[in-house]
């Protein structure tokens, strides 16, 4: 197995604060990888560096053998990395279907002329985007809500729509930032199954940040634990569960 995503000594400082320090990560192709850690450990900051939102102070990010540092989020998206956000960022005024369609936007080859003059290419492109979006809404179980405005969706469905939108970019790697936050037990179980399906059926590598231990331990093949910007453990769920440093970080030693 080759590693799809690899970071080397990734460090970022905000003023005097080192939020992430010497972070190394290797995610293999087709893997379901979990990144966990207590609040403020720097997990989301890692995602922001992986997706071009923040520029690392030091270190490198490679994706599919290509250097990601210095790329902007658009370029990273074109490389095949997509993500969701901890604080859901949907396009509220667009419909559910249109939200998913924006994910398919980047592969479109039409220009302004096509849109304004309604060329055959425009109609072909609209159909392509609609098909992809609809397929992914079905995949996430949202197809019967396609016509609603995104802001009308209940919370759990908003999370799912964000995943559908990210999948519509047809990524190689999807980074999910706390997808189960705020969900009840039933919804979480359903989400676990969906995440597994994303990897198994869509063949997308999954990098997951999650607070819910049961969910992470249940679906991830490998887990890395971050605390105060540093990696404190890496291994299979079983190894992580018994790691004294992890237990200390979570239960609060000292």
């Amino acid at each position, binding site marked *: 197995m080759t590693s799809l995503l690899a970071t080397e000594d990734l460090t970022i400082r905000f003023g005097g604060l080192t939020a992430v320090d010497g972070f190394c990560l290797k995610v293999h192709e087709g893997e379901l990888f979990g990144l966990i850690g207590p609040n403020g450990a720097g997990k989301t900051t890692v995602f922001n560096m992986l997706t071009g939102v923040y520029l690392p102070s030091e270190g490198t990010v490679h994706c599919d053998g290509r250097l990601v540092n210095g790329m902007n989020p658009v370029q990273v998206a074109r490389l095949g990395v997509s993500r969701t956000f901890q604080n859901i*960022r949907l396009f509220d005024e667009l419909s559910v279907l*249109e939200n998913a369609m*924006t*994910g398919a936007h980047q592969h479109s080859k039409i220009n*302004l002329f096509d849109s304004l003059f309604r060329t055959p290419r425009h109609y072909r492109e609209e159909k392509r985007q609609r098909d992809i979006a609809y397929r992914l809404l079905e995949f996430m179980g949202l197809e019967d809500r396609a016509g609603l405005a995104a802001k009308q969706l209940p919370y759990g469905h908003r999370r799912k729509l964000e995943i559908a939108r990210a999948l519509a970019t047809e990524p190689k790697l999807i980074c999910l930032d706390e997808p189960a936050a705020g969900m009840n037990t039933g919804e979480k179980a359903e989400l676990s199954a969906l995440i597994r399906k994303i990897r198994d059926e869509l063949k997308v590598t999954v990098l997951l940040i999650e607070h819910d231990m049961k969910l992470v331990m249940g679906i991830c093949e490998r887990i890395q634990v971050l605390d105060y910007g540093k990696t404190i453990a890496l291994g299979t769920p079983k190894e992580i569960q018994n790691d004294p440093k992890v237990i200390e970080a979570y239960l609060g030693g000292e």
Partner: protein
Amino acid sequence: MGRMIGILVVSLAVVLGVNWFLDSYIDQYVVRVINMCGISIILAVSLNVINGLCGQFSLGHAGFMAIGAYVSAWFTTTLRYFDEAQAKYVAIEPMFSSQWGFVPALIVGGIAAAIAGAVVGIPTLRLKGDYLAIATLGFGEIVTIMITNFETIGGANGLPGLPAYSNTFWIFAFVVIVVMFSWYLQRSTFGRALIAIRENELAAEVMGISASRMKVMAFIYGAFFAGIAGGLLGHLLQTISPATFNFMKSIEVVVMLVLGGLGSMTGAIVGAIVLTALPEALRDVESEIGLVGVRMVAYALVLILLMIFRPQGIFGQKELSLKLLGRLIPGRKSGNAGGEE
């Protein structure tokens, strides 16, 4: 595309008919107000693409208008060539001295404004919200100050003697075009990308939508039609001066948008008509009650009250359609919440 050409041909025929009707039977003053409404519609609909769809609050629309007006006027009034036989400068005859030269002149004006749109769009990409508003306002002011300093185009006194080419036909032909294009734009990959940027720029970028490219496109598109509107206005008023395009003009267009509901094209059209025709109607009322100036005071008050009590405008971000009208009629049951949000 076939359907589009069909719609275009039919609408232009209708506009031609309306033009003939207005010219033959309707009072000149009323025709003039109708023409001004048409120009306002072009302005409001084009600004809606920048401010409403893309969410980039621009206060520079008058600057783009000024560029379009002056460039097109340059072609219709002062473009000459040196004629060897007569040994003097002669206006380029068949091209720009007739109605048919008007459209190319307008389009060149629009292109000049679009270039300015790109020039403004690119550096202001880093700015958001009220900072962008104030920067675009600054751009508009710089344009008028520049014009004031160019004596060859009349300087502060303005440029008189523009041929009276603008008529109901040309104005509403461009209304049809801008409305159709903007509607198509809104309902396409591009429109969704613009709205996505407005709703959440970071998420749009992560989806691979280049916000900077789209914003510049929106500015170019809006500026092009603002330039056309400027050219039409110039050849309607027949005299243009920097003061015609001061930043109050930009604010007027913004108010039209806000009244109709920022982001709603039909709202922009309604706002443009109301805010162009209403002050004219109030002009008589004003002189009757003997309170000159009360019109503008009322205008300002309406704006403030609107923001306090209905900041989303008349239509919000919805488009006026037969379905929506149906819902607004009382007594009819509807599934979802209708016009209200």
